């Protein structure tokens, strides 16, 4: 790689002070994410995968080490609106229509009305929700709500998309469908994506790079570069290559658990 990494963490640590003593949510994390990467973070609960994503988004402050996003600190990146963030729950405002929800970040950023209209139309098409602009979130299914929340994160054309278990609350059939759509979206927009999940097939199917993490203290145990091609039909999950990577992820997760016990 010749270019600078989009996200770069060096010896990153984060310790929460709780009533039961300090909790090492992250310890000595080193990671580079290149432009256009699709990076999955996988691991059992408490391994710090969500915390790591939140540190990148400047929703948590690291207690030691360094991290840069687009070459600057996460705070500066946040203020420059460098990334879109998708939470586990859609969190759409019930008092706004789907269109109104997508418009929300644009209003805050002071984008003109005409540009707002154009952006809403564009991202609704990207997530295949055209025609639902005037519906209210509670009139939509859970999967559609989550697609709308992805559209909201895409609306302001940030180059980075951070997703924290976005499909964790959905059933598997909807989830497969959305996974396909996310890949299609990634291919069309060429964004850098950070994706937290606890599903091995999801991580392997989506990613170019899989970061395996383990708890107490939260740390990276393995980073796997996926040899799978960029074009991935759902059937790819039955190929030997896919199964081999899945095995390696599972081994990494198990190793993390063994030295925990």
């Amino acid at each position, binding site marked *: 790689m010749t270019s600078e990494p989009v996200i770069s963490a060096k010896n990153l640590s984060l310790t929460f002070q709780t009533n039961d003593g300090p909790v090492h949510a992250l310890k000595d994390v080193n990671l580079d994410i290149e432009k256009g990467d699709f990076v999955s973070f996988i691991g059992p609960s408490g391994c710090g995968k969500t915390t790591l994503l939140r540190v990148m988004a400047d929703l948590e402050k690291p207690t030691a080490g360094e991290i840069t996003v687009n070459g600057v600190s996460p705070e500066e990146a946040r203020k420059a609106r460098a990334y879109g963030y998708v939470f586990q729950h859609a969190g759409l405002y019930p008092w706004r229509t789907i269109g109104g929800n997508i418009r929300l970040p644009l*209003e*805050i950023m002071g984008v003109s009305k005409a540009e707002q209209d154009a952006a809403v139309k564009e991202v609704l098409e990207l997530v295949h929700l055209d025609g639902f602009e005037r519906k209210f979130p509670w009139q939509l299914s859970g999967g559609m709500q989550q697609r709308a929340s992805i559209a909201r994160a895409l609306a302001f054309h940030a180059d980075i998309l951070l997703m924290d278990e976005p499909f964790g609350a959905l059933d598997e059939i909807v989830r497969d469908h959305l996974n396909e759509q996310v890949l299609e979206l990634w291919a069309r927009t060429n964004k850098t994506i950070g994706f937290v999940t606890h599903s091995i097939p999801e991580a392997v199917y989506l990613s170019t790079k899989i970061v395996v993490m383990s708890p107490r203290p939260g740390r990276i145990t393995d980073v796997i570069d996926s040899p799978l091609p960029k074009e991935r039909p759902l059937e790819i999950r039955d190929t030997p290559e896919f199964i081999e990577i899945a095995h390696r992820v599972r081994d990494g997760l198990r190793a993390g658990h063994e030295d925990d016990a």
Partner: protein
Amino acid sequence: MIWVIAGLAIWAIGWWSNVLLSRRPKTRATGLAVPAIFGITLILIWECMVRGLEISPVLLPPPSMIAARFGVSTGILWEDFVQTVIKGALSGYILGCGAAFLIAVLIDRFPFLQRGLLPVGNFVAALPIIGMAPILVMWFGFDWQSKAAVVVVMVFFPMLVNTVQGLQATDHMQRDLMRTYAASYGQTLLKLRLPAAMPFIFNGLKIATTLALIGAIVAEFFGSPIKGMGFRISTSVGQLALDLVWAEIVVAAVVGSAFYGGVALLEKAVTFWHPSQRG
């Protein structure tokens, strides 16, 4: 005796028809019909029992007599309505709720003030504030200004507590989302926290409607010009003109329900998105 039997019969018919209606699947029509039948049955039983048991109208006038009195006294009732409801209750309601809302938004910026005012506000909201009425009547005179002042004091704390709680009602995720947009304090307040607070704010506004009417009427017991619903009630009780008292009560009930209903309708329009309103 016939009246008593008629009353019992009406009771039986009313209850029986409601039992039948309530067994059927609930629709809008039965939802309205059942309480309506219940109410009408009560009034008819009242009429029959007062006539049948020959209760003195000084104690409990029959509904027909109250209706007749209402018909001939509309002038007085209107005058009292304007004095008590429009001048006293409504102006106090607007002032009190408005002030509480503004102060809630102001102290929202200062967690220190919030932590101090919320428990104190909760405490004061449970106190018999109505007792302030004689003091306020002394300060602001006998006319409607003192009634409005009583209403202001009564509605202020419930409204303040509800608004402050409402402004805290957003969850972490929603506030994190605003943070990822690098939204300013004002933007977060305007676009997220105020809309999210609306169900709480309307809860306060609804509680305040009843309090406003009570405050305006009771404050008149401590002194008023020779008009107003509270004045009319206390003097008519003294003259044993209970039919006029009941006519005033009907006005109060209708106004109270309409006031409450109006705020509830507004709430439905503003917080249509809230699960409790989607039905």
